[in-house]
């Protein structure tokens, strides 16, 4: 359904996204994780045809077999909301504060599907029910500021679903929410994808949420896709040093407490911090922070090495030791 081949996005000489390869089929639930600045949003924007004008895109991107890498804004408008739709990181910014949320949700239906107002309203109502908004009749007439963060996120999901997209991209849909609400939104997205046989791309730096919502996972660092595979397997036995570092840094209640000397146990960390785009090494992006770095890592780019069917990582350690 959607295919990316060597898709890159450059700002000047700096690559925010480097040779992304991806295939998304109907019903796939794909998680994308990585620290802030790793290129997750950039990737999502490319899939929506919404990359900033200052970004120079190269590579192939096709949707339903159509080449979209060179598509015009008009072509994209055809695709958006009917084929691909997105839930953005900041729910408040994505809703017009002066419009009733019902009108906002009905707009794409009126625009793209020529529904009558009554038909659009009926669909908006059933969408509100589907995404778990209580008292949907009343809620349709409310303004965004009259709702909680979790409710606003549900409205945005309803809006994204308005024209029955085949793919829903959710960019950090739970980051602004508190734990309980985040859990419910995560479960809602997962359920919707299943019930509608819709593909879901779930972008987050919350590994627990990604584990709940997705079957496949892609780990990004510095614009590169460094590891991928079935979510449960990658999280259980990470193969890329960055993935290992990321998982290790998560506080684990079982490891917490004080040692025999009464000193509190420290958390494992990844040394240093993500360099700015133009300061990233040309070879492996993780060089300089990697605890098992080899001499040539900073200059030579590791190739993506399959380790098992459907699994693999881009690291010199994997390509050099060989794998069966």
């Amino acid at each position, binding site marked *: 359904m959607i295919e990316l081949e060597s898709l890159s996005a450059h700002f000047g000489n700096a690559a925010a996204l480097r040779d992304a390869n991806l295939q998304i089929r109907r019903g796939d639930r794909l998680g994308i994780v990585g620290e802030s600045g790793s290129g997750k949003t950039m990737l999502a924007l490319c899939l929506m045809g919404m990359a900033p004008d200052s970004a120079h895109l190269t590579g192939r991107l096709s949707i339903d077999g159509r080449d979209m890498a060179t598509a015009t804004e008009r072509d994209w408008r055809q695709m958006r909301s009917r084929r691909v739709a997105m839930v953005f990181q900041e729910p408040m910014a994505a809703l017009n504060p002066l419009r009733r949320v019902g009108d906002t949700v009905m707009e794409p239906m009126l625009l793209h599907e020529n529904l009558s107002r009554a038909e659009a309203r009926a669909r908006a109502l059933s969408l509100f029910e589907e995404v778990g908004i209580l008292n949907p009749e009343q809620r349709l007439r409310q303004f965004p500021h009259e709702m909680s963060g979790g409710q606003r996120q549900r409205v945005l999901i309803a809006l994204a679903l308005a024209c029955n997209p085949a793919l829903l991209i959710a960019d950090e849909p739970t980051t602004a929410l508190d734990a*309980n609400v985040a859990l419910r939104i995560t479960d809602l997205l997962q359920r919707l994808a299943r019930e509608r046989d819709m593909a879901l791309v779930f972008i987050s730096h919350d590994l627990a949420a990604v584990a709940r919502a997705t079957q496949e996972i892609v780990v990004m660092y510095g614009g590169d896709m460094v590891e991928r595979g079935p979510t449960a397997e990658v999280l259980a036995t990470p193969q890329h040093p960055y993935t290992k570092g990321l998982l290790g840094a998560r*506080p684990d209640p079982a490891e*917490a407490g004080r040692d025999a000397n009464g000193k509190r146990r*420290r958390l494992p960390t990844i040394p240093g911090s993500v360099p700015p785009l133009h300061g990233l090494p040309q070879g492996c992006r993780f060089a300089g922070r990697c605890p098992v770095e080899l001499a040539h890592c900073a200059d030579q780019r590791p190739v993506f090495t399959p380790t098992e069917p459907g699994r693999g990582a881009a690291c010199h350690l994997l390509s050099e030791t060989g794998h069966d």
Partner: protein
Amino acid sequence: MTDAPLLEVRNLTRRYKLPRQSLLRRSPVLTALEGAGFSLRAGETLGVVGESGSGKSTLARLIMAFERPDAGEVLFNGSDLHALSSEELRGLRRGFQMVFQDPFGSLNPRRRIGWSIAEPLRANGEETQVTYRVAEALEQVGLHPADAGKYPHEFSGGQRQRIAIARAIITKPALLVADEAVSALDVSVQAQILNLLMDLQDDLGLGMVFISHDLAVVASICDRVLVLQHGKTLESGPAADVLRAPEHPYTKTLLKAAGAHT
């Protein structure tokens, strides 16, 4: 070393009046915090968890004496902060400092960070050796003294949180109140900041009240935990016990959200 608690909170209650629904009715009252109590010794950390609106920040503001409770006491080294004159309170303030959630919002974007870090010193009228003390605080949080001359936008999120911590420890407080101090950070940066707080606690013997909605984070740094819901204390006790055998279903939900397998 004495066994007297550094901080003792007794039966703390805070109510807020909400806007009137109509002229005829009395304004509804929201009890943001009800009967909270605990004590904390130097070198110890108390974790406060609860979902949004449960009263965590309200508790923090009362401990910091930014606002007054409707009932209850906050004893810092034995003196009730809310019974003191504002003069007396000012004299004690350097002893307890706060680290906020949003380091960007709490740093003045137009001022060099050295100026922001020195703010608590100016507030206490301590004008001597300011440059030296800023440099010392920067080094304590793993930054460089020369960073004092830079502006907030030149730093990453994790570095800005270090700056906020430097500002909090510059008066050499005995108590640190951290409200969602790592919530906005990526896991790897979060781990670095948590370790920094543990280092500072070891080095300076700080007592800490650490507020977060993430139970896994709280468990990693706290000796004891207090769970709030709708302003009420649901349970409290040693972190290990609360995590191993949470008594309340709500605490179980928090554990689940933290990614723990229960």
